[in-house]
């Protein structure tokens, strides 16, 4: 039951590859269709979730707190789908939070920049150089987004098992490479990797449920044991720890909760252990 995560510099390119890969492997595709379900679960407009995935941080970062809340919901919803296995996931930034699970194959697909610049130049009636500058700006904005949202640079190849550029290699070949790679024994789930996935699912669920009341919490799960880190003023330390313990303890699958309160009022609340 391998899990394949496809990331791309261009949503449409990634989507096409993910669809084809899911088709040839007979896997389910987990894409932005699940955002509707997540939005319904948390009582939000779906557009807010899409916006949280697409828009870079604002200059004053005013919207940062809300964005992280929405991303916590997306993370929870996505991981719930991924635990089933035999899935291809795309467009939900899963490559930035599904880390440390050996049966997950992470692939990045890079679109043909020259072709994209040419298409953009023709579409907007601008020079190819200007089109390249626009694409570069777009790339940097998304890079900033990933840094702000998950403290990871999504353009860094070390976050992927494989990066395929479509400048020379065509998409059919890229799909073939993904299909063959998914059959490698390395991507077969093992008891340990399944546990790692379950831990991620649980920590994301806890984070999503507690985030609104305790923004900035960091959650780590290990076989039912939770370690939650939060920041608080000295005088409300005990009260906060108790409230978190009480709420988290009620979540199904949680056996033990440990809360670490960071006593530093100026330190921004850490976000996630990932």
């Amino acid at each position: 039951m391998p899990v394949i995560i496809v990331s791309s510099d261009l949503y449409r390119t990634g989507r096409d590859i993910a669809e084809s890969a899911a088709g040839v492997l007979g896997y389910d595709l987990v894409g932005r269709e699940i955002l509707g379900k997540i939005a319904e679960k948390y009582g939000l407009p779906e557009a807010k979730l899409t916006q949280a995935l697409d828009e870079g941080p604002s200059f004053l970062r005013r919207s940062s707190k809300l964005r992280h809340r929405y991303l916590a919901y997306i993370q929870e919803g996505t991981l719930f789908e991924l635990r089933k296995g035999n899935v291809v996931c795309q467009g939900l930034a899963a490559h930035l939070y599904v880390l440390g699970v050996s049966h997950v194959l992470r692939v990045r697909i890079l679109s043909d920049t020259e072709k994209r610049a040419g298409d953009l130049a023709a579409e907007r009636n601008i020079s190819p150089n200007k089109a390249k500058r626009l694409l570069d700006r777009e790339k940097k904005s998304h890079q900033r987004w990933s840094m702000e949202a998950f403290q990871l640079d999504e353009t860094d190849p070390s976050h992927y098992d494989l990066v395929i550029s479509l400048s020379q290699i065509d998409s059919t070949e890229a799909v073939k490479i993904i299909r063959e790679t998914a059959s490698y024994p390395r991507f077969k789930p093992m008891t340990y990797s399944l546990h790692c996935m379950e831990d991620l699912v649980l920590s994301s669920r806890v984070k999503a449920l507690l985030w609104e009341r305790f923004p900035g919490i960091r959650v780590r799960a290990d076989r039912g044991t939770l370690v939650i880190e939060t920041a608080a003023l000295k005088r409300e330390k005990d009260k906060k720890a108790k409230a978190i313990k009480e709420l988290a303890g009620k979540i199904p699958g949680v056996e033990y909760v440990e809360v670490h309160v960071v006593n530093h009022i100026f330190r921004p609340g850490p976000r996630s252990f990932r």
Partner: protein
Amino acid sequence: MAIITISRGSYSKGKEVAEKVADRLGYQCLSRDVILEASDLYHIPEIKLVKAIHDAPSVLDRLSGGKRAYIAYYKSALTRLVRTDNIVYHGLAGHLLLKGVPHVLKVRIIADLADRVRNEMKQENISEQEARSMILKDDQERRKWTLSLYGADPWDSALYDLVIHVQKFTISNAVDFVCEAAGLEQFRTTGEAHRKMNDLALASRVKAALVGFNPDVAVTCEYGNVLVFVANPERTTRKLREKVKSLGDEIRGVNNIEVHSGTALPPDVI
């Protein structure tokens, strides 16, 4: 059939991948051979050339253009060697030095820092701290080198056709990927691809011959017709013009050679 360039950081197992790919495909594996060829062709001590192409250019290098001369010699030697095809090259910036040649499969092999440190500790018998600092220094030097000479970051995946992370993958898996990609139609040597490679080799050879006269000289070649560009007309010395003229007779394959000064450079210029 194809030219494969394998870019790698130190102790990233890229060398093993390159050797195994060459072995499986029956290709020639090149790395240090290019330095020996350049040293032989341009009569430069090997050690001087190694230092010049390894270390990032200093401020003085940038002003004097000394480093650019060594790169021109290296590029000339590399293009001369890979012209014959069926080559796996794992050395300095092959993906940038052979830019514009269609049948070049550009691969980068990466490994986790912790694994690289472990490999270096084992091979060099040094402490973890020493190994880590040497690897980071080497990476930084490579980054500075490529950024200053080509304005590109070697860590940018867009420069390669394939980036393979040898963590979950074994060396054998990486070899499979590279061999399979090398067999694709896009990387077959067509007549046009061969012509482009020959033009690049000619332009590189001309540049290497002229860089001593003017480090800012730029060269392009199409169908054996070589254009030499000098940005500043005042720097177009008589000696350079004479040398350009003589090159037309000296280098086989040059149909025509001209000097242009003060004109805009075409995009494929080297």
